[in-house]
Each structure stands twice: as C-alpha cells, then as structure tokens.
C-alpha cells in the first residue's frame, strides 16, 4: 500500500510539472498581456510607458524563459505576486481555497446526505409512483441552470422575504467567524446542493438497483437476512464503489463547478478567482490555481482507489505473482 501511494505521489509530481509548463505556455500564447489591459484602462499611458512596464514585468522575455524563472522561484518557495491583487500568491489563494472548500464541503455532504437515502428509497420501489416522482425531481434539479436558481433564491429570500443576505461572505466589519457567515452560506449551499443532488440520486439509484439484482442478494434473502440489512449493508456497500468514483473524480471540477454560484452570491472562492486571473493575465494566480485543481483531481483519483479497498476487501494494491 505504501509503495502504491508513493508511486502515485511521484506520478502526481510529474503530472504537475508538465501541467505547469502547458498552462504557462497556453496563457502566454493568448493575445494581449497585462500591459495591454493597462493601456485600455489608462488614457494617459504612453507607448513608452507601456514598453518600460513590459520590460519591468519581464514580459519582453520569451515564454520559456519566463516559465523557467517562475519555476526556479517556485521551487524555492516563492510563488510570486498576484498582478490583480498586488499581494503574494499564497495570501490571495489560501483564503479563497478555504472559502471554496467550506462552501463545497457543506454542499457536498448535504448532497450525499440527501442523495444516498433518496436513491436507495427509489431503488427499492423501481418504477413506482415514489420512484417516478423522485426521478422527475432529479431531472428538474439536473436541468435547472445554477444562475437561474441562485437568482430565484436571491429574489425570494433576500428581496421578497428579506430573511437572508443577497450575497457576500460576512457582515461588513464583522469578524468573519463561522456563525456570522452562516446566513451568507445558506443560499449558495442550497443552490449547489440542489443542482448536484439530482445527479447523485440517479447514480445511487441505478447502482443499488443493479446490486439488488445480483445473486448474492438473492442468497442473502434466502438465508433470511432482514431486508433492511440486505439493502443497507450488502447492496449499498457494493453500490458505493461506482459512487465513490464519481464523487472522487468530482473533486477536480469543484472550482469550476462553483464559478456561477460564487459570482451570483459575490462569494470569494477559487472558481471565480481562477476565471478572473485567466482573463486578467494574472499568470501567477492562474498557474497556481489551475495546478491546485489538477492536484485535487489527482488526489481524488488516489482517494477513489483507496476507497475501493475500504469498501471491497478483495481489492488490493500489493503485487501478486501468478
């Protein structure tokens, strides 16, 4: 197991290195640079000013040279400054990452807490009235655009009822503690939960139905195992293997998935930050942010593999000779 994890970590490092080069290259290849953005914003900026700033920021160097400079500094722990925020990259990224993980962690847990029982409930009564109703609700949840749902929530709970803040992270001037942030989390969490719970429910339902058709379930029932145990201990445990895959792979798409919700609720998360950094040519933030997303995907894969082993003892990572 230790060897397996070590190999995977080494592979992750190689992938990160390749990704960093590709991302840096792609961002650098896009037309326009930060100085062009400055020129657009400042009518007083002259061509001479622009040329001087381009040299000052090292933008007159070839991309590969800029990348090597960045890599060399990064390996010494210096991730550079954010051009858009005039702050060191970790100072900008860390709170955003924490915010996104909090938002997504809660909605993720809530989604699974709703989807698993709901999926099992529907699987036990396939094609019945309750199953049809749950399916319809799931399709509605999958189909509804997050921005529309977010807007609906804002209008209902902030404008009409006035019981929740329309957006933001915490009260202006507040300490930013979790209790203060709770009202601000309700609508974004609800939006993300509602748009993801449908998909998870459908997936759990299908996986449980598949397991309930297996021979070992019939055997368990024949042996007189109570139906509750058959479903929750036997079928669900095996059904969770594909579910774990979907959930773990979803890690990597967390940032982009939250983009719309974060924008609508003025929530300061990673999705919006990465998006803005790409548009704003904020190379350092874009690079580290996208590498974090890559890292999350790799971590998700590793967790999925480890999850299989936990759910199914037959799966092992030790080498066997045949």
């Amino acid at each position: 197991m230790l060897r397996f994890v070590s190999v995977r970590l080494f592979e992750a490092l190689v992938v990160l290195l390749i990704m960093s080069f590709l991302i840096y290259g792609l961002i650098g290849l896009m037309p326009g640079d930060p100085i062009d953005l400055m020129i657009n914003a400042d009518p007083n900026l002259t061509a001479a000013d622009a040329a001087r700033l381009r040299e000052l920021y090292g933008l007159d160097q070839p991309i590969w040279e800029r990348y090597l400079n960045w890599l060399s500094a990064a390996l010494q722990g210096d991730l550079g400054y954010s051009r858009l925020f005039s702050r060191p990259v970790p100072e900008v990224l860390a709170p955003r990452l924490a915010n996104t993980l909090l938002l997504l962690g809660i909605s993720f847990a809530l989604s699974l807490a709703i989807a698993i029982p709901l999926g099992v409930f529907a699987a036990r009564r396939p094609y019945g009235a309750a199953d049809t109703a749950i399916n319809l609700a799931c399709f509605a949840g999958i189909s509804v655009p997050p921005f529309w749902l977010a807007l609906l929530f804002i209008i209902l709970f902030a404008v009409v009822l006035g019981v929740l803040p329309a957006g933001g992270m915490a009260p202006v001037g507040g300490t930013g503690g979790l209790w203060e942030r709770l009202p601000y989390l309700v609508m974004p969490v609800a939006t993300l939960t509602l748009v993801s719970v449908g998909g998870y429910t459908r997936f759990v339902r299908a996986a449980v139905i598949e397991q309930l058709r297996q021979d070992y379930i019939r055997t368990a029932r024949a042996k007189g195992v109570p139906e509750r145990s058959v479903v929750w201990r036997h079928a669900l445990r095996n059904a969770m293997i594909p579910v774990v895959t979907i959930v773990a792979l979803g890690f990597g798409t967390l940032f982009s998935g939250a983009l719309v919700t974060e924008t609508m609720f003025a929530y300061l998360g990673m999705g919006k930050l990465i998006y803005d950094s790409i548009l704003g040519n904020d190379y350092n933030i874009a690079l580290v942010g996208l590498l974090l997303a890559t890292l999350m995907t790799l971590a998700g894969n590793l967790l999925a593999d480890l999850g299989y082993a936990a759910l199914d003892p037959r799966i092992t990572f030790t080498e066997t000779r045949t």
Partner: protein
Amino acid sequence: MAINRTLLGCAGAALALSVGLGGFGSAALAAKDELVIGAVQFPGTFHPSIDAMATKSYILGTARRPFTTFDQDWKLICLLCTELPSLEKGTAVEVTRPDGTRAIDATFTIQPGATWGDGKPLTTRDVLFTWEVGRHPLSGVTNAQLFSKDIVGITAVDDKTFTVHWDKYRCSYDSINDLLVLPEHLERPVFEADPAQYRNRTLYDTDRTNPGLYFGPYRISRVESGAYVVLEPNPTWWGDKPGFKRIVVRTIENTSAMEANLLSGEVDYVAGEVGLSIEQALAFEKRHGQRFKVVYQPGLFFEHIDLNLDNGILADVRVRRALLSAIDRDAISRQLFGGKQPVAHTGVNPLDRFYSEDFTRYPFDPAAAVKLLEEAGWTELRGGIRHDAAGRRLSLEFQSTAGNRTRELVQQVLQEQWRKVGVEVRINNQPARVLFGETMRERKFPAMAMFAWLSAPENIPRTILHSTMIPTPENGFSGQNYVGFRDAETDRIIDDLEVTCGEAEARPLWTRLQQIYAEQLPALPLYFRSDSYIMPPWLDGVRPTGHQYPSTLWIEQWRSK
C-alpha cells in the same frame, strides 16, 4: 419510513434556519448615516500611481485629492492646490532651458490645512518624493512619461510651495492632475529598501488601512480583498465635514445580483463610474424606477468605428461618407438607449468648451449614401450587394468586442442599415483582449472596428490622429492611430494646439480640427456613451462628472436628505 422522517427533518431544519435568520434583511438595511455603494470590480492595488483602474480612482477619490482636476462643468480647478498657476499672475513663467528650448515653469501652493491622516502636514517634501518615485524606472509607476519626460524638475520654494519645470512650452502647464502625492514619511523607507520591489511592497497594499496614507474627507478603515472597502471620516480633513459616518464600497460582479442587492436594500447606490451599463440601467428603471433616482450622464466615452484607411474600399472618402449617411444614429440612440446617449458627430464632446457647431454633419439619408457609392464606382447591384466595374463586391469585415451585448446589438442594426444601400458587412468579433491586444495594436483589422475612446476634457488627439502615431513594426506598434490617418494639416494643428494657450487663439484650431475630422472621416462617429447612476431618493449632492475623474472627489458634499 425512516428515510421519510429524515427528509422531513432536514426540510424542517432548513426552514427553521431560514426563520431563525429572519430579520437579517432588516438588520442589514443601511442606516442613513451609512452609504453602501455597489461596484462591479475590486481594485487590484490602492497605490494611486500604479495601474489605473476605475474602481480604484473612485475609492481613492474619497480618501485623497489630486492637485488639479476637471470639475463637473469640465473646468480645470485646484483641489489640493490653492490656485491654478497663470502667466497673467506671474505664477507661471515662460523660460528658456540651457539647451535653448522654449519652456515654462509653473508654481503651485499646497492647501495650508492639508494633513495626512496621521497628523503629519502634507508638504513639498512629499511632492519631491513623489516625483522621485515616479521617475525611477523600476518603481512600477504607470504614467512615467509625466515624471521622467514632461516634468524635467521640481523645486521646493518652501514647505507648501513648489515649482514644476515643464520640458517645453505647453498650454497645459497649469494641470498636474496625475501628480498624485505620496506620503514621504511612510513610503520612503519602503521605496529605498528596494525600488524594484516597491510596487509589491508599498504600504498602499501591505498596510492599506494606515491613516497616514490618506488625506481626504474619508480614509480607508477596512479592506476585505475582493469583497468590500470601508471608509470612515478622516479627522484631519481640512474641508467641509463629510455627511456619512461610514461609506462601504461593495463589489458585486454579477449585474443581476447587483440589482437584487439594490432591491433588497443591501446596496444603496450603484455609481455610474463603476456600475451598470446603460441598457441594464434602462431596464432597471423601467421595472423599479419609482423607488430610485436614475441619472444618465453623457460623458467622454466616444463610441465610434475605426476605419482601416489602407483598405482599398475605405480609402475612398466617398465610401466613408456614404457609410455614415446610411446610419440612422438618431434612431439607434432613441430605440436602443432611450435617447440617453447623444449622437456624436466628431470626437469632441458638445460639453467640451472647444466644441464647434461649424462642421459638416451627416444626417440619415440613404439616398445620399447611394449617390455617393455610385459616384465612387459601386454601381452594379447583384443580389442586393453593390459591385464595381471590375466586379469587386462591396463587402466589409466589421469587428468589435465579443460578448459586449450593446455593441453586438448595434452591429446588427448597422449591418441591416448598410445592407439597404447595398453594402455587405460581415461581423467577426473577438474577445476584448484579442481585439485590443493584437488586432488593433498591430492594425490587423481588415476594414472596420467598433470601440470607444476615453479621454479627459480638452484632450488633444495626438495619439489618435497624428501621423507619427501610426503603429508599425518599426516603432514597436506604438501609438493609437489605428486607422492610419495621414494628414499634414491635422499634424500641424495638433502641434500648434499644444503651444497655443489662449482660448481665443486655440478655438479656430479646434474648429478646423473638427472640420477635417468631419470631412475626412477617419472613423465613423456614433454616440457618446453615458454613465448611469442608480441612487436612493434620499441621497443628495452627487454630481456625476462625465469624464475620467470620479464624482467622489466631491464626496464631502454628499448628504442624506
């Protein structure tokens, strides 16, 4: 059943949470001694001279003052100085530099009560330090042209008076709008420690709430990066007492969310400089106008279509005139913008003091357009599109910023109007960063490109119209004369305008410049964009400027009725 109970429990908990949080909305409603302003962007830096950005200028307008600026009537005034220098009063003097150059020295005096927020007086030492930072090649100051070329020296006369030595004789000697003073006592140690790292280590970014950085009616007291900036009255402010105990500038990037915040009362006011576009404001006014005061301020955003004069079709001035005659600009202004964005005839705004009425106008006249096109040789109609004797098709590519809904809408209207006179237009839009970063800068647009220029009042259009400002590979693509306009008379007028200072002497030059523009049409003028301000009815004293300097420079006059 157990699952059903769980579900019901969850729903109940959610409802209880919502009810439990009830009253939040009312608690969040701003009291009248607090003003919450909505903005769609958050500033990258708070350093006044590094990286220009509208939201930064807007916020800093509450906390600092430039020496000089244009007021709401587009008149140059002193804010941090006591009086504009003048040749008549002897505070400006024409001089000859040792190399024989004719130049000018202008003397300014700092407001006697001007004091940094930490109690230190604002003096000429600060001015000299600002100049030192500005001209240092590694400091990262954006507009270094001002510090390292335009100004050749600054001499301190005493603690409050200094003389600016300009590089040459220029009529704008009395204007130092962009010499934005820095606190020497706080910033010098940071700058001297490492000038190359100054742009990353300035206290404006590392200690943003330090009172000593500000000297306006308000000072920044709290910053939540990306979310909001809190401003509180500055006890050392020398002018009128500001009207609010707290001002919050909140960032809400999504415009639908911004509207919802306005309606829920969490945002009081969306400022035109940093807020909603005109069509969003018009739609908002239609739905909720009775609850708010919506003000439209036409300004110095000159929306126009640059024409590539190297294009064989567009090189003929008759075609350019025909294109403009075929556009119903009044209808566009009326139908799309509720008449709030006035039609432009040249790049000079009618609110500018040098605007002239004496130049050719092109009213909507399709018949005149057809006549001009036929005179230019585009006589044969095939499938509704004009062709010339050589069989060339009158077809033009039309570019603009992709994703800008207003421009895309205008493009469609124009395409239809031009089709009616036999001109085929193919729309090929690009993201703003591509259009401005490459296509325009390197003059790669084949025919037409629609965008806007932003300028200050009385701005002499050297970078846009002077023939030396055509971007080429040889000059490193410097200059903004993207159309490739070459006109000896225009060059001469621009050169003369920079040294012809009296209003009476300058007026004929400005008039002739507008006449040439209207005759030659290097670009098709469309309209002047308006900023839209959505204010609560109780907010009083806000006067939009319509130019690049924000209304917050007079924020101490803002009151709650």
